[in-house]
């Protein structure tokens, strides 16, 4: 790559301040790109790789390396590091987006197969292994009810905790609470299910119902709600609170009328993320709601189904039409989550003004 050391063009008359930096000539990057693709192709044939993605990955690495070496020779180490970091960041971004976008594309294309009227109006009652029909009506009802119940309890509770932590909490107690919020944040979802199983179902002897599932979901929602609304409350400038106190407004009114409205868009977004998280939780439901092929509108009695659980059970069945049902249910679940997100953003935008 020694051909790249072209003399910097248009050298200045005086440069005692050293304002000018040597720059890679314009042809350098294309040359390096071609060379790196060439080398990775060579390596591809020398050490047989199975997938084209690896050529891409290797080319990218070689390009980053080649560019860095050329740059450090001509432009110096600092520029070289800057270029390397830039290439790496963009590369990481592009590479990561491939599987992520592929997930969405797959779910949409595969989910379309059974995304029909029957799917949304029928349950799995009486659908045998050989039947192509059946739908997720019962599962959708179950999921919506369980999420609604969970949010109804977890959101106010979580916001209140965050208010305590930000507005009142001082010293050891609030530090302890804050610590355990962190612990809860990292709590594996299956543990929440196990706890509800051990406590609510065994010790209290309650039956497996949709509500038991909600209880498990509450545990998973709380820390997310607390953390996000805590962050948002902290962002409310103190000047705002002081301005309100200065007008003689009591602290609780200040919190409810000034602090919360200011932080609301962020809180709503956090809540929506929390809901989105629990909407897809399968493991705790596995232990708590049991699943039900029939429609059960009452979350407080009898087994219920839920969309994630439905995906799980259908995906494990060997028949291709069952797997189709799983993909359609996945698409439904994504749509529900996306709708929640859009609503949240809409609210956030309106209240911001």
């Amino acid at each position, binding site marked *: 790559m020694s051909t790249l050391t072209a003399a910097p063009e248009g050298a200045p008359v005086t440069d005692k301040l050293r304002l000018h930096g040597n720059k890679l000539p314009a042809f350098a990057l294309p040359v390096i790109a071609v060379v790196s693709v060439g080398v990775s192709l060579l390596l591809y044939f020398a050490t047989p790789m199975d997938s084209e993605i*690896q050529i891409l990955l290797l080319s990218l690495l070689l390009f980053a390396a080649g560019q860095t070496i050329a740059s450090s020779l001509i432009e110096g180490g600092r520029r070289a590091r*800057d270029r390397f970091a830039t290439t790496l960041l963009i590369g990481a*971004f592009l590479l990561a987006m491939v599987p992520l976008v592929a997930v969405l594309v797959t779910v949409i294309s595969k989910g379309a197969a059974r995304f029909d009227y029957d799917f949304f109006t029928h349950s799995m009652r009486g659908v045998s292994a050989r039947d192509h029909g059946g739908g997720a009506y019962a599962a959708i009802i179950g999921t919506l009810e369980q999420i609604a119940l969970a949010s109804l309890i977890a959101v106010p509770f979580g916001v209140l*905790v965050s208010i305590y932590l930000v507005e009142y909490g001082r010293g050891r107690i609030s530090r302890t609470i804050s610590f355990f919020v962190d612990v809860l944040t*990292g709590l594996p*979802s299956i543990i929440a299910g196990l706890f509800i199983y*051990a406590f609510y179902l065994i010790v209290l002897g309650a039956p497996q119902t949709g509500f038991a599932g909600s209880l498990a979901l509450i545990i998973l929602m709380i820390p997310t709600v607390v953390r996000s609304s805590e962050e948002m409350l902290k962002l409310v400038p103190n000047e705002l609170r002081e301005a309100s106190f200065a007008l003689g407004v009591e602290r609780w009114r200040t919190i409810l009328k000034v602090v919360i409205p200011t932080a609301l868009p962020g809180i709503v977004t956090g809540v929506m993320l929390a809901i989105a998280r629990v909407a897809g939780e399968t493991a705790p439901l596995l232990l708590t709601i049991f699943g039900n092929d029939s429609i059960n509108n009452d979350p407080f009695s009898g087994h219920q189904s839920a969309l994630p659980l439905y995906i799980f059970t259908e*995906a494990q069945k060997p028949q291709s039409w069952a797997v189709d049902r799983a993909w359609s249910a*996945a698409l439904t*679940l994504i749509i529900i989550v996306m709708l929640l997100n859009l609503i949240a953003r809409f609210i956030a935008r309106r209240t911001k003004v």
Partner: protein
Amino acid sequence: MTTEPAAQTAGSAPSEPGGTGGGESPPSTSTSTGPRSKAKVSFADATFKNVTRLCGFLLLALMAAIALFLVLKATDALGDNKANFFTTETWFPNESGNPRFGIAALLFGTVVTAAVAMIIAVPVAVGIALYITNYAPRRVGDALGYIVDLLAAVPSVIYGLWGLAILAPHMNGTQLWLSQYLPWFPWTPLGGAILGLAFGLIRRAAPTGSSSVGTPITLGVVLGVVVSLIAGIADAPDDIGIFSTPSGQVGRSIFVAGIVLAIMVLPIVAAISREVFKQVPIAHKEAAFALGATRWEMIRTAVLPYGKPGVISASMLGLGRAMGETIAVALVLPASFGISVHFLEPAGNTIAANIANGFGDSNDTGRGALIASGLVLFIVTMLVNIAARAIIARRAEFSGAAS
């Protein structure tokens, strides 16, 4: 430089008077209404405070209850256990009269899959967040941020389904390649890094030396990878590295499970990191630029240190999700018990996946055993949290929040 006597008075200046650039707010109104006195806390005020505090205590109670009931239900089963819970690799809790089960293999699988996921996901996620906040043009960044937020909202069961149906079959080629051509990984890069570190430290100790050890370490790692690659091409003996496969088989391995988890965790960590990096005050970025920093140097001086606590807690959230993810792992891994350092071979199980697989057809002791394993998972995640907290707290006074 001239040395004049230091300014006499500045040190005693009152700290930060208002800070909001004088002139704008009339100073009289706030004093005339009088400062809030502590004695005048009204009933409503006190009630509100107590309600919020009660919620805080309830949260503590919930936490205690989780620990308590898991312990309670676990102890019976542990008492019946005829094997050492911590060292046994097998899981036969349902044999009446002779339940034998241990956490070793499950814990190993849990930790390793989560570690693989974090090693892949965290750097990439931070990269994505940095790209969106500091490189992409504003509009593009906003749009991408929106996409990442949406992806973070995609339920994990869907990533699991995708990983199972689409990714796992496509991973065989990559796994075969890795096992063939990087047989000594990661020992040679690791050795290279250690040599590099030693070299850097020696150089630093020399009176004229520079204090940078990053470059020699990087060189050592690159050298190690090259050595491993050469060994692979030369078909050197290979049953020491984590990519080597003595059985000659690759498949639904710990590595694949780790990648599925990484894809699942990636948007979550990226979304939170993006939020954190967005909060970096422009003043700090400008300060770095004004000192003649390149964009990357600006990120290293202003953005990364400021965002570090946030990125750590985002990673912890991701780690929690990765360790606790049940369904995807349950479907990907073949649920075999045993500890093997050959991460590409079709073997392995995790605590969460084992609970999901085994819960349905367990007897009382079996469920107790599963709860006991859940307790271990719970403790591990808690330890991870404590460690993260310690890392953050160690530099708390230097945190960005102080200013």
